[in-house]
């Protein structure tokens, strides 16, 4: 079943990139980027998973009980914060773009082929 566990992150990466590439709306593009971010979180956690093991929280389980990897979880927490902050900044820029131009179509933002 590794195919599924490692295939889903690849799928999310490609789908998210597809969304960014084909998007006709900045908000859509920004949300698609968060799908790319999700792929990294899912991969981190599937990599660190151990079948049958508990969560690495020893509040009410014995310390000897096998637990899944805690490090990938810490990394994916940081990853989630990074993803959300980037989205916030991008949304703020999108609001400004709309205020200036009245459109959110990324292709409408293209520069005229000037010098």
């Amino acid at each position, binding site marked *: *079943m590794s195919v*599924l*566990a490692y*295939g*889903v992150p690849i*799928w*999310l990466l490609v*789908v*998210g990139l*597809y*969304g960014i590439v084909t998007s*006709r*709306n900045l*908000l*859509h593009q*920004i*949300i*698609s980027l*968060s*799908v790319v971010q*999700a*792929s990294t*979180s*899912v991969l981190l*956690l*599937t990599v660190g*998973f151990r*079948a049958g*093991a*508990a*969560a*690495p*929280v020893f509040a009410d389980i014995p310390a000897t009980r096998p*637990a*899944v990897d805690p490090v990938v*979880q810490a990394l*994916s*927490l940081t990853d*989630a*914060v990074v993803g*959300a902050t980037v*989205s*916030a900044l991008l*949304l*703020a820029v*999108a*609001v400004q773009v*709309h*205020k200036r131009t*009245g459109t*959110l179509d990324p292709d409408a933002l293209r520069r005229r082929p000037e010098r």
Partner: protein
Amino acid sequence: MSGLEATVLVLVGMGGTAVVAVRDPLRQAMVASLFGILLAILFFVLQAPDVALSEIVVGAVALPLMILLSLAKIRGGSR
């Protein structure tokens, strides 16, 4: 791998696809929120409650909220 893990993984894959496939931003914000909940469930199943909790507060609440606020501005301003 148990059936539960496989099921949730497939749902997350489909959820991500749906987020990208929905082209209307308002609807997309809601689908993204659902996707956040799916991710949180997956993280919970993968024994990562810390990450699941943060995914709920960020992916399912804070981020969609920001998107909705941006949308409110954009819809209001476009008149």
